[in-house]
């Protein structure tokens, strides 16, 4: 069967690679091992093995989940400029963006799973065996849209790669609507995730209309940062051609997003500090600490430093056209958003808790181990997918008898 052969070829490609590739995969396997050790401890002990408590019931896991939803969404948003500006290697951009989205989504779901008290009851959220609480519960929506989005990306990527593997052009009538649909879907997963927080009146730090726009703005910073670095690696190590202009265009779009993200942050901070209601406490906990409770303060300022520096680098055209500063900026914004959209969002939402108690949360060893494992899985999925996809896209991995033409050569735009 042709599809079976495709899978075999892909499987073979997974284990094919140079020394660096193998060392990288070995590192990821070690990370996954660490995660398994951590999770088995959590499985036996319960979530008491984490540092989450009734005062701070969501923390590191859910913070990572939230950040990665942004990455998953933004990777696909790159498809917009690819279409609008008629980039030549549009298929590569679409495929790579969706591969990143798939990996990020897998990590998202794993972070939800490890955060659940009863992962064995996962079926309860599924229509059929379970009882999803639609349309009331945002989490039941989130589960639905994340799965839909995952399937959407898988279908598009599989279709493009499989057709390429057979030496055929993808079916435009099939792919283009799906790719275009994936853009609102990407905005959708991020919006629903923002609503999960914004809908909670018990947590004034989250209960703000600005949350969803802020999620989107920061996602436009973090997701493309990964893509920028990836483009450079791939055009050095493979036959994929990606023009400088394309990367600079992405960087330019990121600059607008970063500036907007900082603007929204400023708007929020003004509102809290100027009105000084009791809701200021949470913002204060993040930026200044309350009394001796200052666990987040250094991270908050480090995150702001990263975001401001990255914005300066990216807003200045010379900054984003110099490869060194561009890459420094990409790393900075990734770090900045990681803190801001992860711990910086979740923890102050719950500190002080709803009865005014301050519990200074820091992730436990088990939480770090599990998170390392999840990132290991995500990176491994991404690495192997890219390792399979690239030779197909460049024409080196083909079905027997299929015409060998690199896909980029006949791109239709």
């Amino acid at each position, binding site marked *: 069967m042709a599809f079976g052969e495709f899978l075999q070829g892909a499987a073979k490609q997974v284990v094919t690679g140079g020394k660096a590739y193998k060392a990288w995969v070995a590192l990821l396997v070690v990370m996954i091992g660490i995660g398994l050790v951590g999770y088995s401890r959590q499985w036996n002990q319960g979530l*008491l093995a984490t540092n989450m408590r009734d005062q701070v019931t969501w923390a590191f896991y859910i913070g990572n989940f939230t950040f990665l939803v942004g990455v998953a969404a933004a990777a696909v948003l790159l498809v917009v400029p690819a279409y609008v500006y008629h980039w030549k290697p549009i298929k590569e951009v679409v495929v790579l963006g969706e591969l990143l989205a798939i990996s990020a989504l897998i990590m998202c779901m794993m972070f939800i799973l490890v955060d659940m008290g*009863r992962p064995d009851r996962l079926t309860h959220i599924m229509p059929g065996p379970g*009882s999803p609480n639609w349309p*009331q519960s945002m989490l039941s929506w989130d589960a639905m849209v994340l799965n839909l989005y995952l399937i959407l990306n898988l279908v598009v990527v599989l279709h493009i790669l499989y057709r390429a593997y057979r030496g055929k052009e993808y079916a435009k009538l099939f792919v283009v609507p799906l790719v275009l649909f994936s853009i609102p879907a990407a905005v959708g997963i991020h919006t629903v995730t923002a609503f999960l927080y914004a809908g909670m*009146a*018990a947590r004034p730090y989250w209960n703000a209309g600005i949350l969803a726009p802020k999620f989107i703005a920061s996602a436009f910073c973090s997701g493309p940062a990964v893509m920028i670095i990836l483009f450079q690696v791939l055009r050095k190590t493979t036959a994929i051609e990606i023009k400088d202009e394309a990367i600079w265009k992405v960087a330019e779009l990121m600059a607008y997003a970063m500036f907007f993200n900082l603007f929204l942050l400023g708007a929020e901070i003004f509102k809290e500090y100027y009105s000084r209601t009791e809701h200021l406490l949470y913002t204060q906990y993040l930026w200044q600490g309350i009394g001796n409770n200052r666990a987040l303060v250094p991270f908050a300022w480090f995150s702001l430093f990263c975001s401001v520096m990255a914005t300066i680098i990216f807003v200045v055209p010379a900054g984003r056209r110099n490869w060194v500063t561009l890459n420094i900026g990409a790393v900075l914004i990734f770090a900045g958003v990681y803190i801001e959209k992860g711990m910086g969002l979740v923890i102050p939402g719950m500190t002080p808790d709803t*009865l005014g108690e301050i519990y200074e949360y820091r992730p436990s060893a088990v939480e770090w181990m599990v998170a390392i494992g999840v990132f290991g899985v995500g990176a491994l999925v991404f690495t192997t997918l890219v390792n399979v996809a690239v030779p197909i896209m460049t024409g080196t991995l083909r079905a027997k008898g299929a015409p060998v033409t690199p896909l980029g050569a006949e791109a239709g735009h």
Partner: protein
Amino acid sequence: MSHRNRLPVIQDAPGEAVGAGTSRRDFLRNAAAGAVLAAVAGCKPEAVVEELQRRHLSELSPERLQSMLGKLEKKWSAKYGKEVTVSAKGPMPGVNFAYGLDLSRCIGCRRCVYACVKENNQSRKNPQIQWIRVLQMDKEHGVALQHATPYYDPEKVPEAGHFYMPVQCQQCRHPPCTKVCPVKATWKEPDGIVVIDYDWCIGCRCCTAACPYGARKFNWAEPNLPAAEMNPVTDYLGNRPRPMGVVEKCTFCLQRTRSGRYPACVEICPVGARKFGNLLDPESEIRQVMDRKRVFVFKEELATEPQFYFFYAT
């Protein structure tokens, strides 16, 4: 209040439940999934299959529910070495419960906290779970959470300059916690009590995040309930033993109150600060409180409309 979500009442409403049992296809699908899960988790496949065969309470026939309760009684009687009963009483018609707490009387002695722990089989330590949290506040600041602490521990209470505010589930008329639950494991019953099916909860803790009163407590580890201290008179939605990884909270002692008894915290309170009764009965203690005193609800600005009223009798 969603009628669909209600627990099928065993005694008098057999017509209410939908469809008994699961189909053969369901069973096979579940069995296959169960085997995979069991292989992954390395635990007993029968237990996992049973778990997967479970359906939402509203889908259980009264017979199925009854047999499930029987199994639980057997299991816990063996585990705790005493005869454990598990009822599923269901709400009484014409009753809507409400609670009153007199802040001018409470002295912060925490008798209620421990009576509740005992009555409701809460985990004693690691994790310690307490459904009532007594906040010590400053008279100078009034009800202000920035100046509240639950950790006061003087020789004697009340302490000068302070007053005390016990907080537990407020049984909101618009509960934010049931709204966010992704699996309908928690709902508001017609008698006003917000309940949780501990065997349906997936432990995502959306409800703990959504509750403005810190009322919902999570079983961070296997609950620690000494057999000797276990209260064997239980209700499925009330005080029966809970598993690890699920959320629990105050249910106005529904295993007592649905048979006409006062909640445990009312009966233990040495100062008579706690009032309980039927809102629909104008002569009930809670209605008398509302008539004669001025009541307020906690965090009224959130429009949760609690069925738990605070008042100052003097």
